């Protein structure tokens, strides 16, 4: 019964979305207030209906209603409650429903928080947002309906992939979707602005918080996925340059570019048409990502059977929205005349450089991801583009970005004195060179990666701190720090986070130690400075799995510092083994232990890794996200309505 109501609510939401994508658009064109006013309640209703449909599906999963095909395929009555719930989006149909739920949530939020927008812009934004929703509702209802019943309900379900039964992964997709779909609002704002034919400082101010929010969610989502890969997959890799990873990384790069270029629109009314283009492309890349993953176009480690019919449908959605927006852009972009004036040495120019680097690095990822398809289609060669390519082709841009960041972020707006800023950064430079030298002499081998990463990290972090100190003025009155706008704190925090992540990546990649051996019970062995001993191996029973669990004692200089329990699990229902690495998390390094198969002589295969600075990768990501949140709570967004009234008279019609 609840299921049927959910199905019905989904169809109703589809109909509401159709109305909302047409009526306000016509209203805005004809200046009919009544028609434009349809958008706001429609957005709310659409969200509530989709929410109800999602709740109905969740209810079916929680109560293990195996008469629903989707529940039978992805759940099991013995599964822990957390994974019954996360199982809702642990499959194609359910995850698409979550996608649309978030899409309508953002639409509703734009309606609720958009009271200060000019009525025509607001009507158009909501109409465009709803048009995207129409396409995805149709996709769900016609190709991927989650509410299909089975004629004969089976006794029990087939269980969720055990690799996915993990708290980190339970929340990874919702965050990513919040990020992907959050960019849809920026897209709607961009298309609405193109229809309106005007972009001004106020537009930049409206778009920026949405971009920030989307970027924060993407950052958290990507970090969660990467952390999960690190502890779950058994060799501590954190990034694989897999097509599906790249699909989420490209929108992240473009969102980062967009939130920087929107500052220039807001402050200087320049870079307008570029910012519009970025907003279209950022969401376009989210759609490309959806297409890549669900069409099976590329071989990805995220293996799952793909349905060509679904792929074609998403391709059509992508072509329609990205192509349509770009066509509109081609006709209207020339109307977006830049107004502000700034000299070559200025914060504005630095932000242009930031955008060049981020956009080009996104392009490199794009070309690398699609090259195997291009090569097969046009040159008839099957080839692979893997991590070695991306590490070589992508990293240089990030290095240049890191080198320029402290300088660019400290230049004054409009007209900067380059030599003055450079002088202020001298202490940071000296410190960074010392750090680099220290690590160069400490390390064994001649890897450039480690020291360069340490240099960049020290340079970015100390540069951000100097920037903050400068804000206290001549008096060096530290209490002024507390009165700085939150956006300044957000900027410093996010930049420091980037530096910390760079340190983590460089440290882990350059100085990881590895040991693979057959360990005998009770015979200690040395890895780096640590002594490890496998003391016992036991068979353990979990709620829905059996486990072979090792007891490993770790000592340093004879003192016990940790007891680790690496596991090898077997899930009987899904018939899949998994490894559960045991990790001793420390500030400067992790000890990472994995247990393998038993050998004929009674020993066990053991792999031990010393992973320096691993935690810094995710600590940095958290700092980046926190910086975004701080910026988001800045006063100027909270009082945005008042600020708009000041900004509005400056806008001139673009035609």
């Amino acid at each position, binding site marked *: 019964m609840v299921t049927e109501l959910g199905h019905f609510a989904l169809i109703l939401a589809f109909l509401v979305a159709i109305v909302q994508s047409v009526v306000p658009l016509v209203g805005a064109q004809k200046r009919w207030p009544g028609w434009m006013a349809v958008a706001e309640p429609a957005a709310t209703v659409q969200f509530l209906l989709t929410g109800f449909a999602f709740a109905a599906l969740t209810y079916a999963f929680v109560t293990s209603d195996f008469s629903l095909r989707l529940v039978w395929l992805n759940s099991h009555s013995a599964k822990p409650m957390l994974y019954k719930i996360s199982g809702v989006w642990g499959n194609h149909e359910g995850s698409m429903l979550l996608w649309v739920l978030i899409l309508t949530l953002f639409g509703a939020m734009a309606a609720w928080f958009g009271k200060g927008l000019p009525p025509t812009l607001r009507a158009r934004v909501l109409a465009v947002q709803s048009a995207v929703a129409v396409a995805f509702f149709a996709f769900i209802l016609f190709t991927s309906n989650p509410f299909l019943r089975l004629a004969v309900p089976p006794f029990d379900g087939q269980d969720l992939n055990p690799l996915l039964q993990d708290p980190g992964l339970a929340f990874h997709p919702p965050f990513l979707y919040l990020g992907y779909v959050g960019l849809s609002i920026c897209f709607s704002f961009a298309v609405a602005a193109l229809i309106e034919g005007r972009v001004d400082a106020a537009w930049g101010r409206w778009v920026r918080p949405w971009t920030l929010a989307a970027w924060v969610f993407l950052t958290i989502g990507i970090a969660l996925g990467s952390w999960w890969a690190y502890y779950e997959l058994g*060799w501590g890799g954190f990034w694989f340059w897999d097509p599906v990873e790249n699909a989420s990384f490209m929108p992240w790069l473009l969102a980062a570019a967009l939130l920087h270029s929107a500052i220039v629109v807001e402050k200087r009314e320049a870079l307008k048409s570029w910012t519009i283009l970025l907003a279209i492309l950022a969401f376009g890349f989210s759609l490309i990502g959806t297409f890549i993953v669900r069409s099976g176009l590329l071989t*990805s480690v995220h293996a799952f059977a793909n349905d060509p019919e679904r792929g074609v449908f998403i391709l059509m959605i992508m072509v329609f929205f990205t192509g349509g927006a770009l066509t509109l852009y081609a006709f209207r972009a020339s109307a977006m005349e830049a107004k502000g*004036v700034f000299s070559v040495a200025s914060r504005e120019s630095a932000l242009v450089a930031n955008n060049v680097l981020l956009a080009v690095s996104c392009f490199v990822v794009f070309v690398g991801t699609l090259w195997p398809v291009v090569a097969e289609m046009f040159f008839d060669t099957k080839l692979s583009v893997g991590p070695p*390519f991306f590490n070589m082709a992508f990293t240089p841009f990030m290095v240049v970005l890191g080198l320029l960041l402290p300088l660019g972020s400290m230049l004054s707006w409009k007209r900067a004195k380059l030599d003055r800023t450079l002088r202020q950064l001298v202490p940071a430079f000296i410190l960074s060179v010392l750090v680099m030298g220290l690590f160069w002499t400490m390390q064994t081998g001649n890897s450039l990666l480690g020291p360069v990463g340490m240099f960049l990290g020290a340079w970015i972090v100390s540069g951000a701190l100097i920037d903050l100190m400068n804000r206290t003025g001549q008096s060096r009155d530290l209490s002024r720090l507390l009165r700085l706008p939150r956006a300044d704190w957000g900027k410093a925090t996010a930049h420091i986070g980037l530096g910390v992540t760079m340190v983590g990546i460089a440290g882990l990649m350059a100085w990881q130690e590895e040991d*693979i051996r057959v360990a005998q019970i009770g015979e200690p062995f040395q890895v780096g400075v640590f002594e490890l001993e496998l003391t016992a191996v036991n068979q353990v029973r979990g709620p829905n799995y059996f486990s072979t669990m090792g007891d490993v004692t770790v000592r340093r200089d004879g003192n016990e510092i940790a007891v680790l329990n690496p596991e090898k699990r077997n899930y009987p229902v899904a018939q899949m083994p998994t490894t559960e690495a045991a990790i001793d998390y420390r500030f400067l390094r992790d000890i990472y232990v994995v247990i393998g198969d038993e050998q004929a002589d009674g020993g066990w295969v053991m792999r031990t890794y010393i992973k320096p600075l691993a935690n810094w990768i995710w600590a940095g990501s958290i700092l980046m996200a926190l910086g975004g949140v701080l910026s988001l709570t800045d006063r100027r967004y909270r009082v945005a309505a008042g600020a708009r009234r000041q900004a509005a008279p400056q806008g001139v019609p673009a035609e």
Partner: protein
Amino acid sequence: MNTVLRKLQSLAVILCLALAAPLSMPAFAVQPDEMLDDPVLENRARELSKGLRCVVCQNESIDESNADLARELRLVVRERLVAGDSDSEVLDYLVERYGEFVLLKPRTDGWNLVLWLSGPALFLLALGIGLVYVRGRATAAAPTEAGLSADEEARLKEILKDS
């Protein structure tokens, strides 16, 4: 229909749009019994296998994969190294048998030059456009603070003259 296929379909989709990481079996990649006694050769073997694709897997190097074929390839790499092949000779040997598909780092010849050079080329182009734009902004006329365009100014004068 066969349930294995359907299960596969239902399996990984959590990651579908998402990213995350390989949905592969747990990795027991390199086994102790495969490893060479000579640490220098073993190191070279490890470095080589990180750049070689496990051709039956989805997108893993043979260093990470626990597929049987990956194990075979790891052993072949070590055999060739012990036989005295240089790194590039080992790679050529494998490309001859499995095609370019086996290389995770595409070669830098022929059409692949487009792949390798498109990034730097676009960077130079974007840098050029960026510079032109920034210089243009530096020399552009500041918008009139009063907000009146030349036409409006003329019209204002006209009105004032009339009165």
